[in-house]
């Protein structure tokens, strides 16, 4: 199995990460936002000399280095002559550093990378490849690997069709935990891309999409079950699609990342599922979902046609397994969801 693991971006973090596990095939991190930003928040913006130092170190440990430049919106700047020249210069530098692969979301950058450089071209989840047709387009543009949109992580018919259609490699993101069929996905990633890109950066008070996303889950916790993460125990169900899995979470602490690496490498986790999920860490201390009690749920998801109001499986499962924490510190208790509240 090949695990792609988030790296928070500074040298100390990389040392700690690689000292913590032998199960890391590759690490990935953001580059400098001056050229192409990323569609997510980052903790660091490593300069070229830092990227070079870290790449050399990763390689000395037998680990590959991937740079993520998956801005979902650059406001057209990449299509201006100055924008093109700056990006071309940056790609060229990354290429000479010996970066193994670059993840991008914009089809233009896929083609540009495939044409002139030696690095593998990875199509980001933010390209939303969820059908064999889209996969085929990206392969023709020159993609080496496609990270399939997690929206179809539980649509085995689509995954199998994509696998049959293209000969490039596929990668699955296992723990992103966005809402299933999330209405905020495009707007949220475009917002992040502007906030974390070359600028001008918006001066934003609050991330509306994030607040809304959490509210929806708090009001309706079955949304946590429906979101298309892949449990460590269920990786075996995906081995006929790919042996390459990506763990999300480049804004977490290294021990959080290592906990995920071990869970997915061992294909087993005995704790709270919330420990593994990226992007809803604010709710980690709210909900308790004993991961092992989800054993076997994949059998339903494999055959489910995702008409939730008729099926109701995830709702029933949520009611059965999800607990919420009450109190704090020493007095913390887990109580079943149904026991909260007494509308006046």
């Amino acid at each position: 199995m090949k695990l792609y693991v988030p790296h928070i971006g500074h040298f100390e973090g990389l040392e700690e990460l690689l000292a913590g596990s032998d199960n890391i095939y590759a690490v990935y991190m953001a580059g400098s936002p001056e050229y192409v930003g990323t569609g997510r928040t980052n903790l660091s913006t490593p300069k070229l000399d830092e990227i070079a130092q870290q790449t050399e170190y990763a390689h000395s440990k037998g680990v590959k280095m991937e740079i993520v430049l998956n801005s979902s919106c650059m406001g057209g700047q990449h299509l201006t002559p100055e924008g093109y020249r700056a990006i071309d210069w940056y790609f060229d530098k990354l290429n000479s550093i010996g970066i193994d692969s670059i993840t991008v979301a914009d089809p233009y950058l896929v083609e540009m990378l495939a044409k002139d450089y030696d690095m593998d071209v990875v199509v980001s989840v933010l390209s939303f490849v969820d059908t064999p047709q889209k996969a085929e387009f990206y392969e023709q543009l020159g993609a080496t690997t496609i990270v399939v949109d997690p929206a179809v992580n539980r649509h085995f018919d689509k995954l199998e069709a994509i696998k049959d259609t293209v000969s490039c490699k596929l990668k699955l993101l296992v723990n992103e935990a966005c809402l299933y069929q999330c209405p905020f996905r495009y707007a949220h990633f475009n917002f992040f891309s502007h906030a974390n890109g070359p600028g001008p950066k918006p001066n934003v008070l609050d991330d509306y999409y994030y607040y809304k996303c959490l509210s929806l889950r708090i009001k309706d916790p079955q949304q946590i079950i429906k979101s298309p993460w892949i449990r460590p125990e269920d990786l075996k169900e995906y081995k006929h699609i790919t042996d390459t899995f990506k763990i999300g979470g480049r804004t977490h602490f290294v021990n959080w990342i290592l906990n995920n690496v071990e869970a997915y490498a061992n294909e087993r986790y005995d704790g709270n599922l919330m420990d593994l999920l990226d992007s809803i860490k604010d709710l980690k201390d709210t909900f308790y979902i004993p991961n092992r009690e989800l054993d076997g749920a994949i059998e339903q998801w494999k055959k489910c046609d995702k008409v939730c109001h008729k099926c109701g499986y995830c709702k029933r499962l949520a009611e059965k397994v999800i607990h919420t924490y009450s109190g704090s510190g020493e007095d913390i208790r887990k109580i079943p969801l149904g026991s909260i509240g007494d509308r006046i």
Partner: protein
Amino acid sequence: MSMTQELLKARTSLENNLRELLGVPVFLIEMDAFALPCGCGGVTINTRGLQLDDLEVFEEHILKYLTDTATSLDIEPSFLFARLIPGTAEIASINARVLCNSCYMDFGRGSGKQPRPDIYIMRFDRRK
């Protein structure tokens, strides 16, 4: 009790009260005591899962809980408000603030519950 212990206790009990009231696991993600350069001070409580219609429907109860919380922290419960994400129903935080004279004038000049799109006032005691 130390200030941090008081904050911890206040956070938990306010969270429990809101959950009981609303019937959902509303989450108070962080409770902070603050002091501003202007002279204002107080607490701000970052919320997740609390929405404007909850506040409108249960305002009387929520105001009482927040007043109790402020009192338990020795904060004069005379200016209590929620901060919203403008244009939406999402409440980002609820706050108990002791206003300095200049901020008192700013808020005192306005009228109504929403002097700004991001502020919903639950209680504002006018000074004599």
